[in-house]
């Protein structure tokens, strides 16, 4: 270091590189005499000081960059300037600073070339690359929190908007108001800044690409911006429109608008060789993003899509395609399950509505996923819930046999064609991992809608049982001998269900049909005297063994009626040897004509109603107890029946439990009649003439009583579960076995305890002594 040349070198260095002596970087580097420069470099090389110079330069640049970076970020995060300009200014400043440093970097490069230095700094031997490298490193070392980087987002969002509107219609002005606004920059038309914006956009991008900062600085922002654009576009175009396929238009949009903009962005610096490959990666990413966004939006709307199926089948087709490209299947299953639960499975939804939705989802999900796995997993909670509703089967049967919701009747007519297509083994795919392995592939595929509904309960018996009750109800409340429609349905049902299970229903329909014939026959035969009767008696003759159990109701008919019915019975006995009739006096329909003061009125009512009004012929005023004594109808039932005549304005409750006949038509107000008519209809409909399911059940359990009685006689006392176990072992075997849960048995036994037929103490049942 003592050599005299060294001092000289230091002096020269101060002149050539003034920044080393803390001269501001912003000043242009002073011009250097080429001769001086050459001798300087030679001296450096001689004293082996080239590397030292480089080190000083790196240190100085790094030092300066800290300030540059600080200034850059300060500009970017400066809240007082508009986002768009902020970023532009910051990048401008950065460009200036990097240009300043580049002057000295050129000198160093020159020096290296002349002195033949090949040392690598940070593994880089090209100084201009090194400069970019240092800039990037320093900038990122001071990166503020993302929240403060909104300026970058603003910049690109605005430029995208301008671009988007230029693309759409090369500058189309909003002509609605007096002031013309440019759609791009939302400025008044006369000072539209679109061109300026585009210019600065290109300017900024050029710098960033030059410094290789674009992806690092704006990559995230760009991606999220694109994402947002895609999201809002998907929302705008596909929101609540399920009747169109959207994939193709969306892809077209992405290619023309978004990718077009990206092309625009990169086209500002075409010299960069990696641009093309970067674009392709970006494009691929965006494509995936589009699919994912679209799929998510469809998944969110899936419930509505299902409800609108089959109108919404294009949406399902789209979703099917998307599911293959994305991994959103588990999301779909989870979301749909949750939505179904939230929208359907609560007490506020009527059972028919749940069933309609269930049918729709069967149809739609079958289309979406032919293997039936999504269907199975998603609708499992629905099935479980339906199992808990009492009227499920009734609703299913109802919609099957009537033109109810979901067009099940049509479905029935299609028959049980399980479309087992011979599949090519080469196209076989294993089940997705979320499939439960309990079911066979084929079993899943062969499920059609009807069997899925019937299988809600896991057995066809419940369905057939419910159908029988419903059929009985319908036949006996309509009193129509026209069974054509019912017969047709029964035939369709027979295609699906076991013939033997529907045998009972067949007999029921046949009873109705035979009754019709018999009635005509009896009335045509003069010997029986039916045609000379005052009133026409017809009868529906049922085979009791094949009909559901009827609710027992007593009714003592007026003498006159009884005589007529007796004649009918005689006629029947005459024609069918050794057989007789047991009348169900409370069932049927009666057509009566009332002759009131100055008018006549015609009614079709039940026998009980007819009998009540009949008795008011004898006297105008009856108490409930009196009527009950005559009719043998319990007062509670009687009161309900009288209600009908009250609403018709014929009877009036003058005192508690005392009713008076009102013949005066003036006493009836029209309003009164109208209002109560509706009420009455409801009441009638709600009531089934069949014994309730619980009553029937109790009847069935009576079978066990003899067993239980015998058990307790031998073993003195037994706990509940022992009784249940023994019943299971001995009593419920064979074809007519009655299933009986522990809970039901407990109810049954408790009823017996209440009747004093059993004693219960300390958890043991005993027979009373």
């Amino acid at each position, binding site marked *: 270091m003592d050599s005299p040349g060294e001092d000289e070198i230091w002096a020269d260095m101060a002149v050539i590189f003034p920044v080393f002596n803390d001269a501001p970087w912003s000043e242009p580097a002073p011009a250097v005499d080429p001769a001086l420069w050459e001798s300087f470099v030679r001296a450096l090389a001689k004293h082996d000081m080239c590397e030292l110079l480089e080190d000083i330069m790196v240190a100085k640049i790094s030092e300066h960059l800290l300030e540059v970076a600080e200034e850059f970020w300060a500009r970017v995060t400066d809240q007082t300037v508009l986002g768009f300009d902020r970023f532009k200014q910051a990048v401008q400043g950065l460009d200036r600073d990097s240009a300043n440093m580049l002057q000295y970097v050129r000198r160093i490069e020159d020096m290296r070339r002349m002195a033949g230095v090949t040392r690598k700094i940070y593994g880089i031997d090209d100084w201009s690359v090194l400069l970019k490298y240092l800039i990037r490193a320093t900038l990122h070392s001071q990166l503020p929190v993302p929240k403060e980087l909104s300026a970058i987002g603003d910049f690109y969002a605005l430029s995208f908007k301008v671009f988007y509107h230029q693309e759409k219609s090369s500058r189309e002005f909003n002509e609605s108001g007096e002031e013309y606004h440019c759609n791009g920059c939302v400025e008044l038309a006369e000072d539209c800044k679109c061109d300026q914006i585009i210019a600065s956009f290109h300017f900024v991008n050029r710098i960033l690409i030059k410094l290789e900062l674009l992806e690092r600085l704006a990559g995230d922002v760009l991606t999220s911006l694109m994402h947002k654009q895609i999201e809002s576009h998907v929302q705008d175009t596909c929101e609540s429109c399920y009747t169109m396929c959207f994939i193709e238009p969306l892809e077209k949009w992405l290619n023309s608008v978004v990718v077009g903009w990206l092309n625009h962005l990169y086209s500002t610096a075409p010299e960069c060789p990696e641009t093309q490959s970067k674009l392709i990666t970006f494009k691929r990413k965006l494509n995936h993003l589009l699919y994912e966004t679209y799929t998510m939006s469809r998944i969110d709307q899936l419930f509505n899509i299902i409800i609108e199926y089959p109108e919404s089948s294009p949406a399902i087709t789209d979703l099917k395609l998307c599911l293959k490209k994305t991994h959103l299947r588990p999301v779909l299953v989870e979301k749909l399950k949750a939505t179904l639960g939230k929208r359907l499975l609560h007490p506020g939804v009527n059972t028919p509505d749940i069933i309609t939705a269930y049918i729709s989802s069967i149809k739609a999900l079958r289309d979406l996923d032919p293997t039936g796995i999504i269907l199975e997993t998603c609708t499992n909670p629905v099935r479980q819930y339906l199992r808990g509703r009492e009227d499920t089967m009734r609703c299913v049967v109802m919609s099957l046999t009537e033109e109810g919701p979901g067009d099940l009747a049509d479905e029935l007519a299609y028959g049980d064609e399980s479309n087992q297509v011979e599949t090519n083994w080469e196209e076989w795919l294993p089940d997705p991992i979320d499939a439960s392995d309990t079911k066979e592939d084929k079993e899943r595929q062969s499920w059609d809608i009807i069997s899925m509904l019937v299988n809600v309960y896991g057995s066809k018996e419940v369905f057939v049982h419910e159908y029988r009750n419903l059929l009985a109800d319908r036949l006996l409340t309509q*009193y129509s001998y026209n069974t054509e429609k019912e017969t047709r349905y029964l035939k369709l049902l027979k295609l699906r269900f076991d013939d033997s299970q529907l045998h009972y229903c067949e007999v029921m329909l046949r009873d109705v049909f035979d009754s019709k014939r018999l009635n005509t026959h009896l009335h045509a035969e003069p010997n029986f005297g039916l045609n000379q009767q005052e009133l026409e*008696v017809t009868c529906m003759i*049922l085979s009791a*063994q094949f009909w559901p159990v009827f609710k027992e109701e007593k009714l003592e008919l007026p003498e006159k009626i009884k005589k007529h019915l007796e004649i009918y019975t005689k006629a029947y006995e005459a024609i069918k040897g050794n057989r*007789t*009739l*047991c*009348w169900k006096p409370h069932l*049927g329909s009666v*057509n009566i004509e009332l002759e009131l003061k100055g008018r006549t009125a015609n009614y079709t009512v039940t026998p009980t109603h007819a009998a009540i009004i009949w008795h008011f012929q004898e006297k105008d005023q009856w108490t409930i107890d009196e009527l009950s004594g005559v009719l043998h109808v319990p007062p509670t039932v009687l009161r309900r029946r009288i209600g009908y005549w009250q609403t018709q304005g014929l009877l009036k409750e003058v005192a508690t439990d005392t009713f008076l006949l009102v013949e005066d038509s003036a006493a009836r107000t029209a309003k009164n009649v109208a209002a109560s008519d509706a009420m009455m209809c409801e009441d009638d409909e709600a009531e089934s003439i069949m014994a309730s399911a619980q009553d029937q059940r109790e009847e069935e359990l009576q079978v066990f009583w003899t067993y239980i009685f015998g058990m307790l006689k031998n073993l003195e006392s037994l706990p509940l579960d022992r009784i249940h176990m023994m019943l299971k072992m001995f009593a419920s075997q064979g074809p007519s076995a009655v299933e009986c849960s522990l809970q039901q048995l407990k109810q049954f036994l408790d009823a017996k305890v209440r009747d004093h037929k059993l004693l219960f103490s300390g958890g043991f049942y005993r027979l009373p002594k």
Partner: protein
Amino acid sequence: MKVTIKSWNGVATWRWLANDDTCGICRLAFDGCCPDCRIPGDECPLVWGQCSHCFHIHCIMKWLNSQQVSQQCPMCRQEWKFRE
């Protein structure tokens, strides 16, 4: 007031006038039908023997056809004769 009943559509169930509820051979209800039949009543009638026992006609016929030696009532072992 005068009530005129114009027509009375009643409901009734039919039953056999037999001394028992179930057929002694098939143990099924008389008012139902024998195991081989599907429709009760006219298509599966009852027959009475002179011993006053009665069965589904199909049941007793099957029984009588299976008896090689003598035709007896399955209930009382008297000789079976149809009562007219």
